């Protein structure tokens, strides 16, 4: 047995033993996700809601803004599936239209929150020391601050608009994400692959972007799906500031809080949007759970 013979690698051997996986990481995740009935259900529901939001003007049975005071508080019927509200407007159509704002408010601020949180979290975690201290102190402040005040400041200095609601919600929300990302970064930055990148001479920001960020994705995904319902609900409390959906338009959060007054007299007005929120929250959570589990076997390896 000599070295030369031995070093001639038997290519077909490697091939034979390695035929298994051709799929990419995400294909793999998607495949295990597909097997998860709850996650699939969640995903389908979300898709349906998204479709509903996009197609609302085409498929809504009634004009959601059509006020007819003679038609107040009609019970659910074939004509009005979910009844009418105190202005005689069709609740079902309003839910369909409301989903536009509610879903936007659910998703966009979560995205912004995530982005800010990710950037600050990675920077804090990666550079540590003073940078970390400063960022984490600020995040402590944000966490202990009345979020209402922050939101008000944004709304009053920038004016009430959807974009500014996004900003208002994000200013409050980033701190939590930053903490999670920071913790993740702290554990990742000591991983050997980060060290390997350093050994090769890769610059810090490239390391953060190429090596650390992608590895936070599973946690971030889960966080993201959990953040969405939170935002949908907080829109209702933002309406307290007179922002949120502007009448006559509506959102689920607003419909729920406005309908509260009629909870016992005309329950459908408030319950229908409430159920919509619940369903979407459950859907996102099931999908989030599924996603986490789908990402998990890989992490175990």
């Amino acid at each position: 047995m000599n070295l030369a013979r031995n070093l001639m690698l038997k290519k077909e051997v490697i091939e034979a033993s390695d035929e298994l996986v051709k799929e990419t990481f995400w294909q793999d995740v998607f495949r295990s996700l597909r097997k998860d009935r709850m996650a699939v259900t969640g995903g389908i529901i979300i898709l349906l809601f998204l479709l509903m939001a996009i197609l609302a003007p085409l498929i809504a049975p009634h004009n959601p803004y059509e006020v007819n005071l003679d038609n107040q508080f009609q019970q659910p019927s074939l004509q009005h599936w979910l009844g009418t509200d105190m202005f005689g407007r069709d609740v079902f159509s309003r839910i369909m239209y409301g989903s536009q704002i509610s879903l936007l408010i659910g998703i966009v601020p979560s995205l912004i929150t995530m982005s800010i949180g990710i950037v600050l979290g990675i920077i804090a975690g990666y550079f540590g020391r003073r940078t970390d201290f400063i960022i984490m102190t600020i995040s402590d402040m944000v966490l202990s601050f009345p979020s209402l005040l922050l939101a008000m400041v944004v709304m009053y200095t920038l004016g009430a608009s959807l974009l500014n609601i996004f900003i208002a919600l994000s200013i409050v929300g980033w701190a939590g994400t930053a903490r999670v990302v920071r913790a993740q970064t702290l554990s990742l930055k000591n991983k050997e692959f980060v060290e390997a990148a350093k050994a090769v001479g890769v610059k810090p920001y490239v390391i953060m972007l190429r090596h650390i960020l992608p590895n936070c994705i599973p946690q971030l995904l889960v966080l993201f799906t959990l953040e969405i319902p939170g935002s949908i609900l907080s829109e209702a409390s933002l309406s307290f500031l007179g922002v949120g959906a502007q009448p006559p338009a509506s959102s689920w959060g607003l419909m729920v809080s406005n309908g509260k007054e009629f909870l016992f007299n005309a329950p459908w007005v408030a319950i229908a949007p409430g159920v919509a929120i619940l369903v979407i929250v459950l859907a996102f959570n099931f999908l989030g759970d599924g996603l986490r589990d789908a990402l998990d076997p890989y992490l175990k390896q």
Partner: protein
Amino acid sequence: MDQALMQVRNVKKYFPVEKGLFGKKTGTVHAVDDISFDIHEKETLAIVGESGCGKSTLGRTLIRLLDATEGSALFQGKDVFKLSQHELRQLRKEMQIIFQDPFASLNPRMKVSDIIAEPLVTHETIGRKEREDRVAELMEQVGLRKAYSSRYPHMFSGGQRQRIGIARALALHPKFIVCDEPVSALDVSIQSQIINLLQKLQEQNHLTYLFISHDLSVVRYFSDRIGVMFLGKMMELGPTEEVYRHPLHPYTKFLIAAAPVPDPHARHQEKLILEGDIPSPLRPPSGCRFHTRCPYVKDICRSQEPQIQQIDDRSVACHFPLE
């Protein structure tokens, strides 16, 4: 003797141990404590020692993944520790590292081709095509099929992953590679494949290795010279065969004897077993660091730290070297 490729002189690396919110220093780990040696071109210098004795720290400090506390390391005449960031980046082409853990050392979310290409992307402004060719060439060199280039690390076995790590280290044609326990995590049958590969590459590319390991069997086979570390200190340094045949330091002797031999007939031989635990690096023993475990301990060992003695081409740090 020819001019050494790297001259390591009095290198120290201390880690402050910080606790609490204020990062108050509560102690110091003398992970590498005043170590000097030369590494010659094309040789394999092995560093052995038990867990936590500072092997990895030494390796990482030498290629400046860690900043040394003190000392110098002249690589081809230039002090690695004094280079500017820019010069350091240039130096990265010359010295590389292969990590112990084939799972942790590859970014699980990057394709193999991207991992191997990362050094090229970082240092060379070559075209995409050229880069792909280089990657293919490297993969071939370490025995990986080109077809795998778009796979992710988790689709590979441990041995294959280690090859990826080796390919990455080779990408910039380094002269000097720190191999930080490159085979410890591998299966017995894969271990020999990698050792052979490293050996082949050394011959082909005239590489110099600093080979860190705690496996004394592998080291005996693979290295030209061997350095034995204990708690941050170099206890003994010399040509491998001589050290194995006639260890000068008691620790070396016990360390070599400790590893079991795959031969049942050897089991009845009286075994030398070192008693006691490895002392904490936070509070190393006074005098000779080994004295708490040394069966030959004398009073002077407890109080006085032994100087390094040069005996021919070997050196040893012991008051009473073995004969």
